[in-house]
């Protein structure tokens, strides 16, 4: 259709919104409630433009044939400012960190008046993983939409009307009191930081000062592909070496790699799969690396408990090994060891409070918290030299690296299972069908006389979808966050699918560069089994590396 945009005659696709048309034509319009992956509810009213002289929200409005659109008039700028002013008493812009989207918008729209006083007086909700401060909330509705549409958890929604409208877990409970899975996707999508993680940073800093304790840090696979973003490095930069250097400069005594825990997980899970197939036990076997998925299962699908692998998540496995295998090897009392996990995930904070697990890992920091720690220490991260993990528990394979991206656990497991069962070498190490950026992926592989049908889902809605057909498969990987851990609730904020693709690509690159790409080839894994655990699935392995689940109420 023909339109006139800022005086220029254009031929445009009438099915696009005015916002998209403007973007195509290099015109920037401030948006707050809008998010590419969500339905434009047009709540914030910042993206105003004039359509034939009338103010409309560009994110939700499509052009009409022959219309005149202008994007920058006094009237528009004034109206945007007024809406910013109306919502800002909550945000307190001056205190808003640079991480948040609203900061940029605030700078774009500007605010030269502050005629209204803060009026909200909500109690801040301090949870086990997330903190919700409704006083900062600007009712953009993104968290609500993400939770209900992308994650299909429906833990939070708006309640009340008019100026009392506020976000709340259902029945005005706390997140811990509802079926929230602690995925933190609401946090990631909140433009003003009204939802944040429960910080363990203070406790970690105190621990670092304690000379009597040996503070050991372990970093999850997906951190290395995202941490650089916090220091203005290109999205998708791999910063493994710099990260290790920075951690050492922060004062951690030992730096281990959760990738190794991932390799251990694969050994155990693969053995479990083979055992279940051989002795006709419950199938499909479902992975358990993602604590948000575990919570979802316990709350909404407890009938799946027999299907769940009993393996602990990789960092919990490594935590257990640190406090047993490593402690013994280094001759330290495990009580003098503090284990800190750097995780892409807020659900891991909840996981570390589970009574059956809490001894393994003491504190969990998100990628963002680590970024804060590094900034606090004035470390010039982008220019750090590389260094290596501590070798005792720091050698890992490419299979561990790809744990951080959706489909990676499955791929790693298949690599090992195939070679262990068939005693043959894989012709192609990579399972390209699992590298695609898709919500649900599937495939099959032949192991001797049995075909294993496998599938992976990432994002809550896709998990629910896949579960409808679960009986078509033998082995299923579930990740609660879109894209897997690279899109976790603890990762640097601001991301769209492009960011996720780049982070994922970085992990696949790291894998492809490694000499060792299969978990069973990892020399440390071999040593741990030889010296300590016996073999995968042994009694001792069960004691240290496996766990159990229970049904939970949604109320």
């Amino acid at each position: 259709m023909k339109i006139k945009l800022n005086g220029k005659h254009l031929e445009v696709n009438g099915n696009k919104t005015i916002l998209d048309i403007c973007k195509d034509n290099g015109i920037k319009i401030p948006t707050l409630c809008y998010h590419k992956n969500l339905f434009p509810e047009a709540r914030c009213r910042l993206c105003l433009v004039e359509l034939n002289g009338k103010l409309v929200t560009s994110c939700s409005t499509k052009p009409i044939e022959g219309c005149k659109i202008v994007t920058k008039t006094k009237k528009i700028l004034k109206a945007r400012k007024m809406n910013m002013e109306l919502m800002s008493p909550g945000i307190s812009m001056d205190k808003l960190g640079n991480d948040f989207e609203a900061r940029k918008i605030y700078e774009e729209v500007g605010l030269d008046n502050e005629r209204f006083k803060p009026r909200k007086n909500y109690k801040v909700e301090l949870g086990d993983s997330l903190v919700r401060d409704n006083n900062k909330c600007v009712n953009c509705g993104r968290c609500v939409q993400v939770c209900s549409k992308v994650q299909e958890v429906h833990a939070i929604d708006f309640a009340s009307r008019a100026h009392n409208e506020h976000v709340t877990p259902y029945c005005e409970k706390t997140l811990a009191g509802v079926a929230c899975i602690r995925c933190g996707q609401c946090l990631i999508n909140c433009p003003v930081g009204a939802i944040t993680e429960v910080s363990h940073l203070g406790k970690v800093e105190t621990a670092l000062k304690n000379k009597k304790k040996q503070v050991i840090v372990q970093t999850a696979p997906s951190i290395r592909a995202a941490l650089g973003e916090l220091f203005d490095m290109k999205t998708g930069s791999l910063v493994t070496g710099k990260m290790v250097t920075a951690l050492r400069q922060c004062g951690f005594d030992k730096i281990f790699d959760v990738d190794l825990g991932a390799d251990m997980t694969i050994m155990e899970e693969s053995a479990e799969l083979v055992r279940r197939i051989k002795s006709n036990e419950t199938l499909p076997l479902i992975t358990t690396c993602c604590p948000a998925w575990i919570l979802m299962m316990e709350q909404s699908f407890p009938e799946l408990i027999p299907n769940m692998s009993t393996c602990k998540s990789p960092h919990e496995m490594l935590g257990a090994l640190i406090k047993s295998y490593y402690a013994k090897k280094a001759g330290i009392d495990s009580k003098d060891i503090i284990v800190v996990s750097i995780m892409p995930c807020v659900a891991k904070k909840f996981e570390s409070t589970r009574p059956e697990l809490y001894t393994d890992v003491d504190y969990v920091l998100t990628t963002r918290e680590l970024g804060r720690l590094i900034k606090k220490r004035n470390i010039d991260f982008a220019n750090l030299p590389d260094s290596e993990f501590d070798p005792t528990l720091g050698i890992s394979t490419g299979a561990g690296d790809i744990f951080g991206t959706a489909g990676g656990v499955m791929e790693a497991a298949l690599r090992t299972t195939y070679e262990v069962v068939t005693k043959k070498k894989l012709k192609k190490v990579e399972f390209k069908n699992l590298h695609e950026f898709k919500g649900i992926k599937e495939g099959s592989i032949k192991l001797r006389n049995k075909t294993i049908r496998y599938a992976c889902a990432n994002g809550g809605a896709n998990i629910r979808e896949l579960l409808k057909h679960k009986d078509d498969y033998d082995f299923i990987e579930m990740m609660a966050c879109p894209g897997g851990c690279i899109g976790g609730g603890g990762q640097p904020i601001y991301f769209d699918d492009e960011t996720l693709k780049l982070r994922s690509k970085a992990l696949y690159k790291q894998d492809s560069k490694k000499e060792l790409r299969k978990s069973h080839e990892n020399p440390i894994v071999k040593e741990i089994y030889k010296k300590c655990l016996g073999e995968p699935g042994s009694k001792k392995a069960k004691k240290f590396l496996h766990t159990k689940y229970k049904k939970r109420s949604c109320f």
Partner: protein
Amino acid sequence: MQVLRETNLQGLALAKKLGKKGTLELLAKRGLVGRGGASFPTHKKWERALSVKTNERFLICNADEGEPGTFKDKFLIKNNSETLIEGILIAAFVLDAKRCFIYLRAEYDSLRLELEKIIKKVLKKSKMKVSIEIVRGAGAYVCGEETAIIQSIMGRRGQPMEKPPYPTIKGLWGKPTVLNNVTTLTCVPQALLYEDWNPNYRLFSISGEVEHPGVYEWELGVKMSTILGTVKPKGKMKAMSFGCFGGIMPVYKSNRVSPALICDKNCHHGAYSLIFVGEKKNIVDVNLSMAKFYTYESCGKCTPCREGTIRLVELLKKIKSGQATNKDLKLLKELANHIQETSLCGLGASCGNHILTGMKNFKKDYKGFIKKK
């Protein structure tokens, strides 16, 4: 009253005889337009829904009358509901709607049992295979808004959605849905059946400081003096307010009441609810009480209306307390205008009218409170 004439299913019989097209043509000829406020021709609305190819269409009768000073739907449901149900059946016939809903204001629950009986009775007589369900509103004024009703009937939070898509194209469960209000649907069989049916009659809800408040029927353009003569004001009148969002203005005997009078050119609410305000009242008080209404009835979805309405109340309170300056007056006007221009739905778009017209027409009342430096 024309709107109380009964039709005894003769309107429906005629519609079936004329067929869908014939019925639409006759409605067009008789000049029936929506009584909710937008005055959109009824046949056109139905035609729009018919233009969508689908296996299902819905009809919603909007009986969520929540505007202060408006009570004509209640009057009609009490006094001529058989004709209303017949109107619904005619619409269902034309639209091929198998499920119809009456979205009944929560506070009108006392009318529900009686209405249910009448629905059963008329349905039985008509022998049509249509269901008419009464859905009780949850008490939100904003659910008088078309898209909010739809959300509410689907069991979602009653908040308006951006239009387009219009409900006639994509409404309940994504299917074309026609929303007509009680008066419009009651008029349908009457307009079809009676050749002398006058399209210009409107129902007026009269309240405030008058001897005879109630529902009246007058022709558009009726003289103020006629209205005053009938309802008998108690003493001298200072102002009349057209509901909450039509605006407030002085009472001139020679005025003729028409949409143009109520809200200038961009009139979107011809609900014809007149609230009379006596001369002892201060308009700032009147505006404040209306502004309070909106601070509780805004749905809270969009920034200007959610955040703005509460600030309007703050400002009006400040003015009343004598602490305000001209700057505050300016802000009040700016804000009222801003909410109107940038809100998502009709509620926000009209919630400043009473203040803007109050400030314009009753300057003295406002100035009287302003602090002199």
